């Protein structure tokens, strides 16, 4: 379980989990789940295109996910954001299906790009994954304050001179880079689960940004580690475990919130039927 190829899997998955935990915190904060789903799907088309012209898959992933991020930002400025995202994702998937129809790639290859293949990471891929991971984390901490500001209070931030358009572009590019490094490890469809489930669960447990971010990293690490171990032991696809453990942690977070609210509310309920603050927080 800890030898040869599996060692690559543990290392790459741990890097991905740390970055996903940090970036995911902002995705949840900004409510950008759709973009986090769209970019990896679009990146999948890039990988298909890269295999068509015979270049490295990571190059294709990077080009397509960054292009997708810029297009979403550009179209989203003029129209509804979710519409722009939806159109970008379908155009990129359409290109992906065109590329797939032209290559002679076997179905298992496509499956592993979509759903991840823990044994598919080679030692030579480990370096670019680590480098991109460091860039993402560094970028998040460089723009931490303005990004936080414009995520929580976009109008106030705008008035103080933080351009929310610029922040949107920077944020989407960071998500795109995270995608690039994560797709070879956990697959295009499941990186999404790793991006939002741990962060959403962490937010149920704490309101402090740094604590939530750290907790989200820990939950992400716990998710991938147990997913790898279970996938190794059961021989089932890793994506299944990432997806279900992710949903499980989120459910646990929601359960925690409900339990705490009940416990706090019960002595007061008889008197006023819940305070205005409670009504706001639901």
């Amino acid at each position, binding site marked *: 379980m800890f030898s040869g190829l599996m060692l690559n899997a543990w290392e790459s998955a741990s890097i991905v989990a740390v970055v996903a935990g940090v970036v995911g915190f902002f995705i949840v904060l900004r*409510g950008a*789940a*759709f973009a986090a789903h769209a970019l990896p799907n679009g990146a999948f088309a890039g990988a298909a295109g890269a295999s068509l012209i015979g270049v490295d898959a990571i190059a294709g992933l990077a080009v397509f996910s960054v292009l997708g991020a810029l297009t979403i930002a550009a*179209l989203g400025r003029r129209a509804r954001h*979710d519409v722009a995202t939806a159109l970008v994702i*379908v155009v990129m998937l359409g290109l992906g299906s065109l590329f797939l*129809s032209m290559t002679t790639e076997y179905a*298992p290859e496509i499956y592993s790009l*979509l759903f991840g293949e823990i044994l598919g990471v080679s030692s030579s891929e480990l370096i670019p994954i680590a480098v991109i991971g460091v860039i993402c984390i560094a970028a998040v901490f460089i723009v931490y304050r303005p990004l936080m500001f414009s995520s929580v209070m976009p109008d106030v931030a705008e008035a103080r001179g933080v351009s929310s358009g610029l922040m949107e572009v920077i944020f989407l590019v960071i998500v795109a880079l995270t995608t690039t490094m994560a797709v070879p490890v956990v697959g295009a469809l499941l990186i999404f689960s790793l991006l939002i489930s741990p962060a959403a669960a962490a937010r149920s447990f704490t309101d402090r940004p740094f604590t939530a971010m750290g907790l989200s990293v820990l939950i992400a690490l716990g998710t991938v580690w147990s997913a790898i171990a279970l996938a190794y032991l059961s021989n089932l696809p890793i994506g299944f475990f990432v997806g279900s453990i992710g*949903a499980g942690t989120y459910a646990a977070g929601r359960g925690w919130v409900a339990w705490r609210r009940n416990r706090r509310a019960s002595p007061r309920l008889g008197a006023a039927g819940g305070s205005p603050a409670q009504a706001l927080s639901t």
Partner: protein
Amino acid sequence: MTAFLSPIFEPGFFSNLPVQTALLVGGVVAVVSGIVGTFTVMRGQSFAGHSLADIGTAGGSASFLLGISPLFGFVAMNLMAAGVMEWIGIRRPRGRDLATGIVLGAALGLAALFLYLDATVSSTTGATVNVLFGSIFTLPSSLVPVIVIFSVVAAGIVLAMYRPLILSSVSADLAKAQGVPVRLVGIGYLVALAVAVSLSAMTIGAILSTALLIGPAATALRITNRPGRAAVIAAAIGVAATWLGVLLAYDSYYWFPSRGGWPVSFFVVTLIFLIYVGSQLRFRRRPRAERSSTATQAA
């Protein structure tokens, strides 16, 4: 006349049975997607619409294991997912995308499992590509009546609650004040969305279903502010793009790499995207449209 048209319509286009099925099914699905999609865009639920297409793949892949038609797997899975989304909070705009995303993540995990089992246990090859990208040319014509019935159901639900649906889509508060059962309308609409999306995801692939749902409707809402007119325009754009896409895919049989033609979904998606971008350039900022869209966002 025939000699004049043959460069456009490759020989045998209209007499080919798979093409006839594709035109018929594609047209029906495009009309329903246009009608339902108009409300999806107005309600800002594009993500839910797209997610249902992806979530359905879990049902579609499970049905290969059970040996039933994927269509029923899609519909069953989507109705269940719509129920869960509604239950964990699709109504609040802020947490809505998150609720959708969590359900989507869990369903994709299941899809991974089922597709893996398809390949190993029941050795159904090509299930991944078939379920995700669909194939309009390989539809059995026996499925056509079922698709038409489901389409009528989805469109019927939307038309039956047409006015309350418009009101609650534009402003939930206003609708509530007028005595519209907003939550019930929302659930009814989600059912229609789930059925429409399963149909299109099953017949023309998960990608295309999102394109047909969102693209024509977003374009139509650029052109007009009136929901009814927008639904008609959206249906027309969807049908035009689908038919043209089928035609181009048929013609592309002899094009470069020549491995049996280019995929229909590529053509349809590209056409829809170009129409949308074109409408953006032609119908720039319209104050009323802008205001009503921010109102929907706030709602």
